[in-house]
């Protein structure tokens, strides 16, 4: 940074770009006719920043700008050991008949590591979205639309969560041009951590954003349920004993009834004569007590008494108490039976309030999580080694660590290199797109130098990390990057390449 001239000194500097035959003269701070190359303080730069993930232990460290930002440098000494070059902004050489833009050797724990850095163009990619809610967002297989265009569908539900499967090659390239464009834009926004407004056919309107609570039909989801109705009975049975005569946990999936449930039986809970209108699975566990919806416990109920039939007059007693509560503790009601054995709503007694609060406390915050999924195709692999299938095998044998913007990835078993990565673990704006339409995602392959050689790697194109940090251009790469951004490595992410 000390080599940079002050702004006054370089005001009049023009440089001549040699990236194409036009050979533009470019004034300081301006770009050439192509809008791709620019003059930054007398240096010809490509207008994509390369992100370098800096390995720093301290939490809360700020970005360390290397070039041209207004944030102050925090004075930390930038030593090559602490850097891992990510692929963000590395550019790409698609179609990859030549080596990836940056092949960087760094020493890590005394082992020579090689990182092959490129931005992959993924036509085969999508996002799996997990939305922590019990609310019914739409039937499974329903289309999910953005701007009226189908971008994916509701897929099989998971524990306490609704799942969306978005993108994929058929929406990106198989439908209309607009469908492809909207799908690409949706994936880009989600993967870059932006909010997207979507509509489920025959279902809800959703606003989802990675790492944020989902907003369903305009209501922000607060908590993920503590468990299904039956599980909730099991978890809290002992706490309710002696305080109330019957407890019903209302849940779209499995509604639990204390006196009939195994947990209640163990505690010798007395029968209450309650009748649940639903399909009984096992004692005390009922399916399909109501239609799914956005009311009590993911049902459409606003009045929980709708799921109750008449109490058995041979068993039930007038004055008997009944607590009904949802799986998140958000909805609750207290009743006592009158002389005709009808439940009459009463104010919640103080003795029961702590148990409801306990349910709520035990619910985790509801979040939306977005997982990027994509396949590294043949040509992308060819950018890494001369024998693409060897790379696939090496990945499977864990000789090669794959990361996505420095974030760890899960590699699917089976053929190809199909990866999944949590977008929240990547630096901001790690993704780009091309109008094809397809997503541009960073992808790094890290391995021992000796393994790289054995795999048929492009050894003659390897440079040291010191050289990469000094701005050296890979000879396979046509562009010098506009400086770099050092970002702090997150403590919960293992150092790429380790282990």
């Amino acid at each position: 940074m000390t080599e940079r001239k002050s702004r006054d000194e370089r005001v009049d500097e023009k440089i001549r770009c040699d990236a194409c035959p036009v050979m533009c003269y470019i004034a300081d701070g301006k770009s050439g006719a192509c809008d791709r190359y620019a003059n930054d303080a007398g240096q010809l730069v490509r207008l994509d920043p390369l992100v370098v993930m800096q390995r720093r232990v301290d939490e809360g460290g700020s970005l360390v700008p290397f070039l041209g930002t207004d944030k102050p440098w925090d004075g930390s000494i930038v030593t090559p050991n602490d850097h891992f070059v990510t692929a963000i902004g590395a550019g790409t050489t698609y179609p990859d008949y030549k080596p990836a833009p940056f092949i960087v050797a760094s020493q890590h724990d005394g082992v020579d590591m090689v990182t092959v850095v490129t931005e992959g163009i993924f036509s085969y990619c999508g996002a799996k979205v997990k939305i922590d809610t019990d609310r019914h967002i739409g039937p499974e297989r329903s289309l999910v639309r953005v701007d009226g265009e189908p971008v994916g569908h509701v897929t099989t539900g998971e524990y306490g969560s609704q799942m969306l499967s978005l993108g994929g090659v058929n929406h990106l390239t198989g439908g209309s041009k607009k469908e492809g464009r909207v799908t690409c834009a949706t994936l880009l926004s989600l993967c870059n951590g932006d909010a997207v407004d979507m509509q489920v056919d025959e279902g809800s309107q959703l606003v989802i954003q990675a790492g944020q609570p989902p907003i369903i039909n305009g209501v922000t989801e607060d908590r993920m349920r503590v468990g299904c109705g039956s599980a909730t009975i099991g978890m809290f049975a002992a706490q309710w004993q002696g305080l109330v005569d019957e407890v019903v946990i209302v849940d779209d999936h499995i509604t639990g009834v204390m006196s009939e449930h195994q947990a209640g039986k163990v505690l010798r809970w007395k029968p209450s004569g309650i009748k649940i209108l639903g399909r009984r699975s096992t004692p005390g566990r009922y399916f399909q007590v109501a239609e799914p919806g956005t009311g009590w416990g993911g049902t459409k109920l606003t009045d929980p008494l709708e799921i109750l039939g008449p109490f058995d007059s041979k068993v039930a007693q007038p004055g008997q108490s009944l607590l009904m509560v949802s799986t998140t503790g958000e909805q609750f009601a207290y009743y006592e039976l009158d002389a005709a054995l009808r439940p009459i709503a009463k104010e919640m007694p103080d003795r029961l309030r702590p148990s409801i609060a306990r349910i709520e406390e035990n619910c985790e915050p509801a979040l939306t999580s977005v997982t990027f999924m994509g396949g590294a195709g043949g040509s992308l692999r060819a950018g890494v080694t001369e024998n693409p299938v060897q790379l696939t095998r090496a990945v499977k044998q864990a000789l090669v660590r794959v990361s996505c913007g420095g974030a760890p990835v899960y590699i699917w078993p089976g053929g190809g290199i199909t990866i999944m990565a949590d977008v929240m673990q990547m630096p901001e704006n790690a993704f780009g797109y091309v109008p094809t339409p397809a997503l541009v995602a960073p992808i790094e392959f890290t391995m021992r130098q000796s393994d790289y050689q054995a795999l048929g790697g492009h050894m003659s194109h390897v440079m040291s990390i010191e050289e990469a940090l000094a701005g050296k251009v890979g000879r396979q790469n046509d562009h010098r990057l506009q400086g770099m951004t050092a970002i702090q490595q997150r403590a919960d992410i293992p150092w790429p390449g380790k282990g």
Partner: protein
Amino acid sequence: MAAAPQAITYPASQTRHPAGAHARWLDDGRLHLHQGPIDLVIGADGTPDAIGQACSAAIDSFATVLEELVSELALLRTPIHQIACCPSGRVAARMWAATMPHADIYRDANYVTAMAAVAGAVADEILSVMRDAADLDRIYVNNGGDIALYLHPATVAVPHYTVGICADPDVVFRSHVNPDALAGDWAARSVPDAFAGTIKITAADHIGGIATSGWKGRSHSLGMADLVTVLAPTAAAADVAATLIANAVWPDDDNETDWPGVHRQPANALAPDSDLGSRLVTVHVDRLPDHVITKALRRGAGVAEDMRQSGHIFAAYGVVQGQGFVCDAMTQSTAGSSAVFLDETA
């Protein structure tokens, strides 16, 4: 961040050399040709053999286009009225031919150079090579918004192109040009909408080029038009006309004097080797009062109408901050004036 997927050759040594031309197929079957500042997206319809032949010819021809242009760059950056003879390059000759008709009016301080036609001329040349190589139903060559197009007059299967016109991302207007329905849908013409209107072009229109210019575009503009779109016999002709009409969208006859709310800088401060030299180009326009916009649009519309009546162009549309003008055969026959202002026809 959104790096385009150019396949760029890498230099064999550490010395950097200019990158060559590159061709690749987009997933939807269109051809993308790229070198330096030129990005062509080409769509062709016809038999697979014909498309293959035409595209091979386009790729071969494109390989040398930029080098040829660069070899005559100094000449092409000279004001057109100072050039005595036609340049030798294929594209350069097209640029010269498209710009020369305006040399009488645009001279001295108010000069124009052949560079005003460069994008359109490249598109025209590649289109021409493709037409010569094979018999196709229809072809378009889109050079960053300046488009050369061809429709086979005898083709029944693919009778037209539908072209979307985006005047401004914020405020756009609808217009429909369709000689088959000269009555015109006047309501639709004047409705501001969130997205641009579309025009349907048939072989009978003889429209061979569409170009757009304005200060919001990629090239420098001397005027305050957000965008001016022109339909003309060739893309090069449309390119020059759009540039000149956009330059003329200015509220005052004196383009040298600054106008409040319009921010300008010398062209050579932005691009040292600009053919515009030290002439002031628009870099930002604040919200302007309606009467200023109307005056500017009237001047632009006047220039457009002169060009239309001289046969250089078929139609022009211009927009400043949501207000615009339409200039075509219909506006004359229907309204009897040289141009119709959209806000006046509502």
